[in-house]
């Protein structure tokens, strides 16, 4: 794993415009940086990243199987009792999952460590699947990178195939907080994939979803919603006014309800409890668990529910080293052993491993200027070269 500086493509501004990315002469493409790329060997990708990610996915499922049958665990995760049966039924009924991104700390040697699993509403999807791939093709054409470079990137094809294999009937609805351009863009991309898979689709704002007399959710054209692809976290859905109506609505959600267990950072503590010592897991505990003494004051404290690097605190030998702000301070926390991101000239890459329908399908690297990867991180492309 190397970080290699490289010239930007000559047509970067045009490419950004074509794909609807914000572009400024001074800052380039917002959320994207192609002034460098990361180079991996095939062995690193397959044996250190993709293989372990799929293995972890299997362990995650064992953990979910246990959680849905143990009310104490669901309570520990802060999931309201009214949803316990609903989550369990969605798991036992085999409701299919589509996307997830495991965030890993890895420096090219030794086992990658799972920092967290964005199992419910992962983003940077379009940058990973489309923009990064286009960069590879164009950078090779322009001679910026070796001609025989490859990339770990089957994300687009995998999503299209998975949509086609889900057995969806009728219209598939897509919903998010459409006021957020990034979220809307990601969802529109997923919608494009669904269309490519032959599905009939419609996109709307979560806030525009209606409820009818029979407990069905409706769209703005008075049609009943039967399948909903949402870029809106399960914990929000469960907490909001219509949340109580969700179980009886019989809507098929993508991601399915049981993903609420995996997108909760309490899963890191539960995974460690079940699979302590696994090379790709870090020790992790619910805050207040006496077991956390084993971390000896060097750990990362994270809220059970937070996003984009918010409300993270890093401690070393009992002293706070680094903290990020955010609105997610309330509620439970976990503490996790430290596996700092590697540093490459002041940049800290976080490796996002895409799982599409539980198969490792691609890599997305986000770089920050601190050890905490926040919303200001930029996606940096990668290549595979022997």
């Amino acid at each position, binding site marked *: 794993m190397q970080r290699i500086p490289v010239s930007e493509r000559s047509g970067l501004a045009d490419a950004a415009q074509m794909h609807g990315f914000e572009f400024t002469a001074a800052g380039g493409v917002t959320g994207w940086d192609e002034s460098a790329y990361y180079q991996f060997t095939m062995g690193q990708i397959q044996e250190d990243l993709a293989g372990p990610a799929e293995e972890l996915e299997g362990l995650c499922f064992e953990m979910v199987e246990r959680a849905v049958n143990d009310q104490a665990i669901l309570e520990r995760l802060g999931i309201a009792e009214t949803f316990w049966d609903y989550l369990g039924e969605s798991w036992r009924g085999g409701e299919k999952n589509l996307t997830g991104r495991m965030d890993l700390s890895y420096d090219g040697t030794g086992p990658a460590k799972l920092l967290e699993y964005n199992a419910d509403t992962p983003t940077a999807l379009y940058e990973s699947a489309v923009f990064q791939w286009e960069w590879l093709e164009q950078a090779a054409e322009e001679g910026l990178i070796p001609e025989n470079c490859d990339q770990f990137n089957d994300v687009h094809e995998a999503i299209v195939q998975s949509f086609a294999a889900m057995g969806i009937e009728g219209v598939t609805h897509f919903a998010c907080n459409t006021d*957020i351009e990034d979220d809307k863009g990601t969802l529109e991309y997923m919608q494009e994939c669904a269309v490519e898979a032959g599905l009939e689709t419609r996109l709307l704002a*979560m806030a525009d979803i209606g409820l*009818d007399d*029979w407990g069905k959710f409706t769209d703005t054209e008075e049609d009943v919603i039967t399948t909903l692809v949402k870029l*809106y*976290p399960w914990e929000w859905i469960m907490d909001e006014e219509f949340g109580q109506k969700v179980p009886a609505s019989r809507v098929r959600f993508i991601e399915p309800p049981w993903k609420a267990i995996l997108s909760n950072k309490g899963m890191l503590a539960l995974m460690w409890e079940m699979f302590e010592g696994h090379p790709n897991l870090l020790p992790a505990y619910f805050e207040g668990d006496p077991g956390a003494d084993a971390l000896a004051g060097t750990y990362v404290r994270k809220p059970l529910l937070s996003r*984009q690097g918010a409300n993270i605190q890093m401690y070393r030998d009992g002293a706070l080293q680094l903290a990020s702000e955010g609105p997610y301070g309330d509620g439970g926390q976990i503490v996790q052993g430290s596996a700092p991101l590697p540093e490459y000239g002041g940049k800290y890459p976080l490796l996002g491993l895409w799982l599409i329908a539980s198969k490792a399908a691609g890599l997305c690297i986000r770089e920050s200027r601190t050890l905490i990867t926040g919303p200001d991180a930029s996606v940096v492309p990668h290549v595979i070269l022997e």
Partner: protein
Amino acid sequence: MGVSLFALAACGEPEVEAAIFENIQQCISNGDASPEQCEQNFREAKSQHAAVAPKYATASDCQADFGAGKCETAPYRSSTGGSIFMPLMAGYMMGSMLGGRRSMAPQPLYRSASSPGTFRTADNRSAGRSTGRTKVARSATSRPSVKTATRSRGGFGSSGRRFGSGAT
């Protein structure tokens, strides 16, 4: 010239084969389908009727569209506890067993007051005037949508307004 799957209707929309009957007895007398098929298809169409039929808040609104004596109360209540009205089922379209599109499901049919000779799907698409084996516009064989009346909106979205992006 080979046999083409679709024939073109006058309006230009492709037509597909279908079979339409007013009731089980008519289907059995016709003889193209077995009595079991006639009954099974009727049951499936009837089971969708309450969900897909157009809904009205008053009997007079329903009768204005479907005619006097052609409406019934739906097995639902409005949010205020009032009755909901819908047209009587006037016939049914068979599934794919008598030709037509693959994966065509049986569905209920209705007759409107303004054009009582014509069968209409629950989505108000014409299914022609004939019973027995016939040809109908392809769109008339689509699965009818569930009819509803939204009572409230805005029960989702508050967290998004508070926190912004829902992505991770």
